[in-house]
Structures are given as structure tokens and as C-alpha cells.
């Protein structure tokens, strides 16, 4: 691995004439009424606190085992921006593949706990029997199985009961006031009524869930309006992300909101949440706990099994016919042997996808937070040249300093965009 972080991993952003934010692994230090000498002194103090982070492995062996199954590429919606063209292929995972994947991870892991995720591809609940089978089978092999599902929200009473019985964490997609236009059924009819009812069901049943909310050029101006809609539904965690249109997506690039528009409306949305004292948290890929880690599990931590038994590093690539599949499909499940085999050449390429290897990120003060952005988006734009997507870079630079400015004005903003932290 060619990761080589520079000697200092403390970055500084100047918010205004005497306010600064120091970005340190696991820490944000806000300084008010500070001089440059004050900042230098704090940096020195912090550098003494950080021991050799680089010496630590990037893969923590203590992690619980984690497996993602993609039950199908089929889908009961035809979202206009779908990254997977869900529904175009009627390919379903068999119980044999699901069982072999669980057996295979049992063989390579000593963990007592398995995080078992279901994602698309298509809509996982379209192949519900395999999901239920996989959970029950995994429970025979692991002491504890934590289940999560990413769903489009089109499911019935049986699936809802299954979610409750199995304590499933749910990420449900809903596009707010633009939902019916952006997320129709195959015949063009609207899906919002069903999704809305299921969100209310999740609220009433105290299920842990978050709403994935795709922002396009169509709905970017209605972000504030949609926030009220979500708050009224009882949603507690919202995940607004700008649509990304790649070669394999359904939809045209005109759907992508401009970085300025997204950033502006994102900030207005935060202001609205504070002004109305809404009980909402905002989760976005543009903000994360500052660390020296990877953006995601693309470097080989993602064990995502396609319906055919390929192992993909990114959910955007699930078919061998797709571009980049020679690298992104970096392994294969041998079903008859219940064994994973990996392509070392592909893995070596994936492990380079760290911000320390991106030339544009090396001197950027935001690198510990944005972590180089979505690697797949970088690859779509720049191939494997280890170059950052201009789009996500611009957005990070528009959003992160503005969020810090808001926090400097009012600490309540930190409660909206951060979680699981202490204030000292």
C-alpha cells in the first residue's frame, strides 16, 4: 500500500479573523478570539498527543464480521436516477448462494457477531424468502446477527413484522415532496403513499431507521420544504445526498444538482432545522468523524455478494458486463466449496483508493473529514489515476467550512450533523 500521510495530520481552517478550527483525528478543536500564536501552540500540544497513527493497521482485526448480500437486481420501482438500473435484469440470488456466503464468512472469521446487510442492486425485499433464510441460517452460525436493510420502502405487512422481529436497522429511500416524480412504479404510477405509510409504520413500531433522500436538480430547491415533510412524518435521521449519474445509471447528467445549489440549500436546511427546533439529524457523506481512514470499505473490506456470487467492492458495479468490473468485482464466491477467492491484482488497485494517494488531497485541510470523497465517483470521473472528482471536491469545500462557521455561531448545529461525541 502506498499510503503516505504527511508528517503532520493536524489541519487548520480559519473561519473568520479570530476563529479557527483544528482538524485532528477524532477531534475538532474550535478556537475563538485566538491569535496565530495561540493556534501554533495548540497544534504543538496536539502533536504531542498523537502517537504513531500510521503504524496502526488500516484494517482493525477486532471488527465484527460483516457481509452484504444483494438478493436481486430486480426492482419494483423505476427511480429516474437509479445507479443500478434496478429492474432491468431479473436476476435473483438463490438460497444456495446465500448459504455458501454465510458459510464462507464463518470459515474466515472468528467473530461471534455478524453484521448482515441486504442492499441493492435492485430492491432486496423483492427476494424476501432469501433474506429471511439468510438471517435464520446466520443465527445458527453466529452468536449474534445484526441485520440491516436498504429498501425503497415498497414492502408489506409480512416484511414489516420481519423487520420488527429481527430488530432490523432500515435505510429507507424517500425523496420528500419530489418523491412521486423521482421514484415511480414501472408503469409510472406514484409510490409515495406506500412509502409514506411504511415510514409511519416504522415510527409507530419504534424501528431504528434513517431516510435516504436523493437530491436532484429537480428537488434541490425544495430541500427546506421537504425537511418539514420528513419531520412531520416522524423521521429522526435524514441522509440527503446529491444524485450521481455514471455510465451505468438510469437517467441523464442534467439530474445532478450544481454544487453551489446543493450546498446553498443544504446550509439553508440546517438553518431551518435550528430555527424551527426540529428533532432531526442530518447524515451526509460530506461530513465524517475526522480520521486517517478510508472513505469506505472499497479497499477490500466490503464483502458484498452479487446474486451470481461475485464479490463487489462497490454496490454500483454488480454485473461482469459493466465497465470497471475487472477491478470492482474483486473476488468470487465458490458456491460448491463455500469459499471466497480474491483477485490480488484488483485488491492492490483498490487499496490505493485512499486520500493520501490523491495528489489533490495531500495538502487539503479537509482531507480527514471528506477522505477524498466517494472513490467510485473519483473512478468514474478520472479512472484509476488517483485523482479526485471535481464535483465532490467542490461540494466538500463548499459545505464543510460553512458548517463549521455555523457551529462557531451556535453549537446546536453540531448536534444536527455530528453524533456520538463529547464536548470538552
Amino acid at each position: 500500500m502506498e499510503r503516505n500521510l504527511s508528517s503532520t495530520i493536524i489541519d487548520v481552517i480559519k473561519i473568520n479573523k479570530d476563529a479557527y478550527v483544528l482538524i485532528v483525528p477524532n477531534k475538532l478543536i474550535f478556537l475563538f478570539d485566538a491569535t496565530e500564536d495561540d493556534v501554533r501552540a495548540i497544534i504543538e500540544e496536539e502533536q504531542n498527543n498523537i502517537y504513531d497513527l500510521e503504524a496502526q493497521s488500516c484494517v482493525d482485526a477486532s471488527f465484527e464480521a460483516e457481509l452484504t448480500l444483494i438478493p436481486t437486481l430486480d426492482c419494483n420501482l423505476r427511480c429516474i436516477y437509479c445507479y443500478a438500473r434496478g429492474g432491468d435484469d431479473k436476476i435473483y440470488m438463490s438460497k444456495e448462494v446465500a448459504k455458501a456466503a454465510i458459510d464462507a464468512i464463518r470459515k474466515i472469521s472468528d467473530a461471534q457477531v455478524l453484521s448482515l446487510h441486504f442492499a441493492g442492486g435492485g430492491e432486496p425485499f423483492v427476494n424476501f424468502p432469501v433474506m429471511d433464510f439468510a438471517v435464520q441460517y446466520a443465527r445458527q452460525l453466529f452468536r449474534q446477527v445484526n441485520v440491516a436493510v436498504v429498501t425503497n420502502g415498497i414492502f408489506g405487512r409480512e416484511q414489516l413484522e420481519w423487520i420488527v422481529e429481527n430488530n432490523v436497522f432500515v435505510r429507507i429511500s424517500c425523496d420528500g415532496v419530489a418523491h412521486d416524480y423521482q421514484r415511480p412504479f414501472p408503469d409510472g404510477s406514484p409510490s409515495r403513499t406506500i412509502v409514506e405509510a411504511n415510514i409511519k409504520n416504522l415510527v409507530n413500531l419504534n424501528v431504528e431507521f434513517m431516510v435516504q433522500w436523493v437530491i436532484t436538480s429537480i428537488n434541490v430547491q425544495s430541500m427546506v420544504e421537504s425537511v418539514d415533510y420528513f419531520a412531520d412524518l416522524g423521521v429522526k435521521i435524514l441522509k440527503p445526498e446529491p444524485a450521481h449519474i455514471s455510465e451505468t445509471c438510469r437517467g441523464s447528467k442534467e439530474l445532478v444538482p450544481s454544487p453551489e445549489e446543493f450546498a446553498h440549500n443544504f446550509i439553508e436546511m440546517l438553518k431551518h432545522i435550528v430555527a424551527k427546533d426540529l428533532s432531526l439529524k442530518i447524515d451526509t457523506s460530506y461530513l465524517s468523524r475526522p480520521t486517517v481512514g478510508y472513505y469506505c470499505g472499497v479497499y477490500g473490506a466490503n464483502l458484498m455478494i452479487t446474486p451470481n456470487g461475485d464479490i463487489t467492492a462497490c454496490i454500483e458495479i454488480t454485473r461482469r458486463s459493466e465497465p470497471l468490473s475487472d477491478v470492482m468485482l474483486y473476488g468470487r464466491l465458490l458456491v460448491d466449496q463455500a469459499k471466497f477467492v480474491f483477485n490480488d491484482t484488483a485488491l492492490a488497485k483498490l487499496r490505493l483508493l485512499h486520500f493520501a494517494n490523491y495528489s489533490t488531497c495531500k495538502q487539503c485541510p479537509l482531507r480527514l473529514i471528506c477522505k477524498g470523497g466517494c472513490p467510485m465517483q473519483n473512478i468514474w470521473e478520472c479512472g484509476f489515476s488517483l485523482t479526485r472528482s471535481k464535483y465532490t471536491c467542490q461540494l466538500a469545500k463548499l459545505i464543510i467550512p460553512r458548517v463549521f462557521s455555523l457551529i462557531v455561531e451556535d453549537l446546536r448545529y453540531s448536534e444536527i450533523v455530528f453524533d456520538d461525541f463529547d464536548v470538552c
Partner: protein
Amino acid sequence: MKKIVIQWNKKNPNDSGAQSKRLTGAAHPGCCREKGGCPKKHGG
């Protein structure tokens, strides 16, 4: 000078963070959390 520190992982402040841990909902076993998967949109 006034100083406010937002600190994660107080028990293990030198944790390198194998991957991006999303700031919100970090306690959830969700799909975009620290141990793999996609912070951006679907999956993982």
C-alpha cells in the same frame, strides 16, 4: 482565547478509524457505518 473541543472515541482517541465513520447515527448498525459499505447512498 476560548476553546471548544468536539471529541470522538474518547476511550480510544488514537483509533485510526479504519474507514470513514459517519458522524450521525453512528450508534446504529446501519449500512453506511464505520465497518464497510457506502456512506453515500445504497448498500453495504
